[in-house]
């Protein structure tokens, strides 16, 4: 990891298309501004990780009777208790 120290209003460039600026520092919080082209995805890392984890959990779905589940989804009434 490259470690840089910046003050408020200072900027870092990543490649020639991404710019990160420290906008404000208040106690433990840093407000960061990011300039990047639209094809660059910008995410809080924990959101990325959450989705990655959920994608992985989805792989554990083996052996379910999808047809049966599909019928249940189609015919579901709110509050109905399902016996699967």
């Amino acid at each position, binding site marked *: 990891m490259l470690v840089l120290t910046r003050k408020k209003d200072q900027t870092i460039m990543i490649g020639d298309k991404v710019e990160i600026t420290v906008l404000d520092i208040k106690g433990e919080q840093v407000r960061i501004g990011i300039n990047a*082209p*639209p*094809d660059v*995805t910008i*995410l809080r890392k924990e*959101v*990325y990780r*959450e*989705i*990655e*984890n*959920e*994608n*992985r*959990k*989805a*792989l*554990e*779905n*083996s*052996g*379910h009777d*999808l*047809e049966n*589940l*599909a*019928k*249940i*989804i*189609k015919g*579901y*009434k*709110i509050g*109905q*208790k*399902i016996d*699967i």
Partner: protein
Amino acid sequence: MEISTRDFGTVSIDPKDIITFDKGLIGFEDNHRFVLLGDPEANETLLWLQSLEEEKLAFVVIQPRFFNPEYKVTLQIDEVSELSGEDEGDFLVYAIVVIPEEVQKMSANLKAPLIINVKNNKGKQIILNDDRYEIKSLILAEN
């Protein structure tokens, strides 16, 4: 062409049906080629998104309209052009389903749906900024 699937053995598919995810899926950025498998007559609600590159990579997916008719995805212009789409009708939306032990709690990821351009079979998993939608949106609740 023949492909190996996780749950259905060897299956014959039409290469025209291959969906290309240039950026893969989140956490699976190296997997680009998938195909949707299922029996639309028996069950149009739940399909499998099967990887062509890795047999074990298969996801159950659902179109959100089947359990949340009000779900709307707003695509950014750059997302649309990345998939070379021209208008709304070009896109299908799917959400990845998680079926836990307690099947009643099965959920779909409405926060990070899969967008597929049906005209050129390009797909992408996008993350919505919208706070209304959850990573674990219950399918059997508030239908």
